C-alpha cells in the first residue's frame, strides 16, 4: 500500500543558548508508514520520539532530510503554506495531557473546533460532531462541560475531535500516560477500533509494552535513531536489545526468555497470558515427562 508518511534521513537539533548546549534530538531517521497501518514507537525519555511526532504533524520542520506526507514532499523548496496546511488536515495528534488540548468548555463545541477551522458549513459540522461523539461513545456528554470528565473521557473528546476532521492518520503522543488503567484500556480500545474499522493510520508513542504489543509494527528509538523496526514478535524477540535501550519487554516475554535459559523451549512472542501459559505448560509437562522416562529407563 502507498505510504501516507515517508521519512528519509530526518535530522533535527534543538538550538541551544548560553547555558544549554544544542541537543541533537533526531540523527538520521528513515521509515515509511503505509496507509492503514498500526505502528508503535518505543524509546526512553529523550530518545527523540516526541520530536519525531512533532515533525510528522508539521509543527516543526526537519533541519535536514526529506519528509513526504501523502505523496507530497513537505521539505521541498517549492512547498507552499497552503500545501502544508492541507497536509496538516491529514495527520493529527492526540497529546499526553488531556487538559491542555481541549479548547472549548462544552464537549461538543470542542469536538467541532477542528471542523470549524476547516471552514465547513454548520450543518455538516453538526453531523460530523454527532457521528464522532457516537463513535467514541460520548454522545450523552455532548452538552457537558469538559472539566467534569475523567482523564480517559477527556482523551475520548480529543479523539472525537480528530475523527470529526476525517483525518487519515492520527499520532498518539503518550496519550495514555496520565490515565488510570481503566482509562488506558478504553483509550487503547478506541485506538484499535479506529484502525481496524475505519482504516485510519495510527501511530502510538508509549512506555507501556503491552500497548505496543497490540500494534502491527514497532519502531524502537534510541539516541535519535531507529534501532529496531519490525513486528512485536520480532522486536520483543530480542529482549537484550530492549533492555540495553532502557526499555522493557512484556512480562510474558521476560518469563519465556528466562525459561529458555533453563532449557525450556517456549516462544518469546506470546503476549496473551493464556497463550503463553499454554505453551509453557506443554513444554514443562513434556520436559517433566522426559525426565521421568529417563529416570524410569
Amino acid at each position, binding site marked *: 500500500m502507498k505510504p501516507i508518511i515517508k521519512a528519509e534521513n530526518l535530522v533535527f537539533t534543538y538550538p541551544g543558548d548560553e547555558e544549554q548546549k544544542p541537543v541533537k534530538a533526531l540523527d538520521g531517521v528513515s521509515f515509511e508508514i503505509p496507509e492503514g497501518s498500526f505502528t508503535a514507537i518505543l524509546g*526512553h*525519555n529523550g530518545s527523540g520520539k516526541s520530536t519525531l511526532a512533532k515533525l510528522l504533524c508539521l509543527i516543526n520542520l526537519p533541519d535536514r532530510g526529506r519528509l513526504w506526507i501523502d505523496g507530497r514532499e513537505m521539505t521541498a523548496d517549492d512547498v507552499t503554506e497552503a500545501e502544508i496546511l492541507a497536509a496538516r488536515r491529514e495527520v493529527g495528534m492526540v497529546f499526553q495531557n488531556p487538559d491542555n488540548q481541549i479548547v472549548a468548555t462544552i464537549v461538543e463545541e470542542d469536538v467541532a473546533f477542528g471542523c470549524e477551522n476547516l471552514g465547513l458549513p454548520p450543518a455538516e459540522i453538526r453531523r460530523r460532531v454527532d457521528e464522532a461523539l457516537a463513535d467514541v461513545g460520548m454522545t450523552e456528554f455532548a452538552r457537558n462541560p469538559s472539566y467534569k470528565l475523567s482523564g480517559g473521557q477527556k482523551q475520548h473528546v480529543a479523539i472525537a475531535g480528530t475523527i470529526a476532521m476525517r483525518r487519515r492518520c492520527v499520532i498518539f503522543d503518550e496519550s495514555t500516560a496520565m490515565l*488510570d488503567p481503566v482509562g488506558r484500556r478504553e483509550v487503547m480500545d478506541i485506538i484499535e477500533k479506529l484502525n481496524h474499522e475505519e482504516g485510519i493510520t495510527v501511530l502510538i508513542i508509549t512506555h507501556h509494552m503491552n500497548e505496543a504489543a497490540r500494534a502491527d509494527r514497532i519502531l524502537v528509538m534510541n539516541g535519535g535513531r531507529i534501532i529496531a523496526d519490525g513486528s512485536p514478535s520480532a522486536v520483543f524477540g530480542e529482549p537484550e536489545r530492549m533492555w540495553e535501550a532502557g526499555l522493557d519487554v512484556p*512480562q510474558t516475554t521476560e518469563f519465556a526468555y528466562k525459561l529458555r535459559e533453563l532449557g*525450556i523451549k517456549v516462544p518469546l512472542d506470546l503476549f496473551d497470558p493464556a497463550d503463553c501459559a499454554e505453551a509453557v505448560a506443554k513444554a514443562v509437562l513434556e520436559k517433566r515427562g522426559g525426565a521421568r522416562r529417563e529416570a524410569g529407563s
Partner: protein
Amino acid sequence: MNAIEMRHVSFAYGSAKNGPTAKKALDDISLAVESGGITGLIGHTGSGKSTLVQMINGLLKPDEGEVLLDGVNIWAEPKKIRQFRFKAGLVMQYPEYQLFAETVAEDIAFGPKNMGLEKDELDRRVREAARFAGLADDLLQKSPFDLSGGQKRRAALAGVIAMRPKILILDEPAAGLDPAGRRDILGGIKRFSRESGTTVLIVSHSMEDMAMYCDDIIVMAHAKILMHKPTAEVFSDWEQLASVGLDVPLITRVAAALIENGVDIGRDVYTVDYAVGKVRELLGENPES
C-alpha cells in the same frame, strides 16, 4: 508500635457532607501499618485512596474517628498539626510541578526551613536527601527548571526526604516515566526505606511495580478497605481483585492460566523471577543451583 493507625475514620467532602445524597469518601476505615517496610495502596480512581493519603498527613481532618502516627492522635491539638505534616512526608502526583525556588538546593531546603532548621543542619539535610534521591551534587546549584523530567521528579522527592519524615507517602511516584526511570525512582525509594528505616506508603495503579517493590498491600474499594495483606496473598486472590475492577500483574495471569493447564505453579506468583524459580522447582531442580 504501628507507624500509622486509623480507627473508624469516616470522611465526606464539603458538598457531599450532608443531605440525603451524602457520599462518603472514607467509610469507617480502620487500619494499622507497621513501622519500616513498604506498603502499597491500590484501588480504582475514586475509591478513596487520595483522601486516605491526605488524612494520614493531616491535610484533611476526619469527620469521625482517629488518625494516629506512632501511637499519637494527630488531631489531639489541632494547632500542632504542622509537626505531623513533617512526620508524614507527602509526595503528590507529578511533584515536579511544585518546584519554585531559584536553585535545586533552595527548593529541597524549603521543608526543613519551615521546620525551623538553620544553616549547617540545613546543608547537611539537603545533601543527604539529594543523595537518597539520586541527584548528583553539581545539580544542586542549578535552577530546578533546567533539569530533565526525571531529575525534576527526584528533586521534588528530595524536598520531602529532607524533612526526614518517619513516614514517606508517595502518590504515583513513577507516573509518566519510562521503564528505566521507573526502576531508578522506585529502586531509590526502596533503598531509602531500607537504609533509613522509614515507613513508606506508595499509591499506584501499576500492579507490576507494586508487585516488585511492596511488602504488603492495602486494597481500597468504594471508600472501604477490601483487604490488607502481604503482597503475595493479595495477588493470589485475583478473583476478588477482579470483582472491584483491579488487575493483577501479567505474570500472575500467566500463573493462573498455567494452573488451568495442569501445571501447579501456585497462586502466589507475582514476579517473573519467582515464577521462574517455581518452574525450576516443578522440574525438580534445586533453585539455588
